[in-house]
């Protein structure tokens, strides 16, 4: 037996939460900002991270001016620690690391830089790091999602949003599966799985698993485990009634039955005029009107997520 010094007790684990969804303009940033605000009100120490590549504007959602220091300053090593770019938001317990317009885009961030960012984010002295992933399914976005303890997908009850969220789920899962592939053959299968016309006829992770089982049986267990531990959580935003609310349950069932993925319906937020009225005034609705319908649902969502809970169908 090799002599290995026992590891010191790990510090209390910070959690990384992230919110994506593939589609732009569905309220991800507002949802992230209000969820962060709510978690801080519940006594958590929270840092919001704006990883929105297209348009970093989480600060505007929080009613803050453009920040003097952003994630870009950390990536370019203009500051020494990531703590220095985390600014106060005016809400006790809630800080913000602003996005750096385009510095996180695939062309501009190198792999090592990304690893450094991910490591430092993990090391932040907070309870919860909450990342706004922005739109799209670029590798950087997927990687932030995949390192998260709680990966959320915002959807609005519209076909495009739901199509994109399925695409996001598959892209993220396949990226994880690709890392696990041990041979070029399996990597190739995974790489092609998202292509509708792939030669194996793979359309879902279940199909993919069946093909790997056939072609490389030794590798299928690892992939099956990865699929089993992949656990996206849906948040239905801008729900206008029972039919919209029910969509979350349908998505969860569809994921289980047809993708073989365990998902949770974390909660829904009502469509609420208060929200956009506040946006126009550059105020965060949940802080300006903590009792409006949308704010109440953000409260429910935060509590459900903290308890690792979700909405279930009445039985």
């Amino acid at each position: 037996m090799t002599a290995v010094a026992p590891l010191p007790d790990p510090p209390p684990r910070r959690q990384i939460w992230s919110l994506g969804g593939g589609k732009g303009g569905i309220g991800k940033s507002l949802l992230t900002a209000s969820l962060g605000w709510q978690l801080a009100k519940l006594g958590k120490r929270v840092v919001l991270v704006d990883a929105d590549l297209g348009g970093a504007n989480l600060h505007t959602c929080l009613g803050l001016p453009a920040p003097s220091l952003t994630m870009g300053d950390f990536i370019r090593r203009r500051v020494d620690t990531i703590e220095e770019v985390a600014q106060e938001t005016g809400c006790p317990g809630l800080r913000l690391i602003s996005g750096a317009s385009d510095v996180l885009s695939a062309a501009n961030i190198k792999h090592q830089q990304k690893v450094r960012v991910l490591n430092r984010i993990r090391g932040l002295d907070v309870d919860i790091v909450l990342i706004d992933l922005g739109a799209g399914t670029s590798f950087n976005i997927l990687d932030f999602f995949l390192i998260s303890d709680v990966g959320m997908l915002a959807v609005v009850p519209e076909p495009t949003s739901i199509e994109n969220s399925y695409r996001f789920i598959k892209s993220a899962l396949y990226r994880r599966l690709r890392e696990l592939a041990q041979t070029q053959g399996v990597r190739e299968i995974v790489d092609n799985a998202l292509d509708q016309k792939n030669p194996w006829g793979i359309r879902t992770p279940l199909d993919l698993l069946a093909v790997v089982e056939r072609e490389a049986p030794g590798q299928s267990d690892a992939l099956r485990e990865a699929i089993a531990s992949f656990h996206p959580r849906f948040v239905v935003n801008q729900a206008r009634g029972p039919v919209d609310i029910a969509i979350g349950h349908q998505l969860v069932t569809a994921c289980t039955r047809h993708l073989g993925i365990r998902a949770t319906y974390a909660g829904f937020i009502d469509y609420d005029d208060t929200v956009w009225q506040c946006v126009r005034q550059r105020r965060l609705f949940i802080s300006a009107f903590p009792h409006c319908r949308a704010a109440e649902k953000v409260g429910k969502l935060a509590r459900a997520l903290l308890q690792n809970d979700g909405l279930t169908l009445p039985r």
Partner: protein
Amino acid sequence: MTLRTHYDVLGVEPAATPEQLDRAYRFCLELYGEGSLATYSLLEPDEIREARRRIEEAYGVLRDPGRRRVYDEEKGFQRAPQIPTTPVDPSSAVSAVLLTEPVTGAALRRFREQKGIGLREISLRSKVGVRYLEYIEQERHALLPPPVYLRGFLQEYASALGLEPRRTADAYLALLPRQA
């Protein structure tokens, strides 16, 4: 996921009550319904048709006490003694009743009006759109969903009025003109 049993297909436990079966059935109809947001981009049309077929098959067996008993015995499911069906809203019906005349749209409407219940109220209670409730009463069959879906709507409508849901729905459907 392989849905082996009728219970899996509807997503219920083998001990499910008739009300739970009805709820699960409606949920599945919505999940695989025309233009369902959750499934249209995930499944091919023939897969959706197959899913619907299995739901109808499962519901048809499980919702019929006799067929369900045979099925349970065959598959080795043990069930608690059958709990009698309770009306959806106990205040609206002491015991579920049947119409004494042929169950036509007009008859349903007369019954509803006698009870002084509005379509909007039924819609809120049953989650079936007012428009469909009107079509049921007007017997505008072309605008109504196929009988397999219509059955669920009819049962909701009947429950909301305190009518026995299953037999009322069956009676209404029996009077529908056969489709070519």
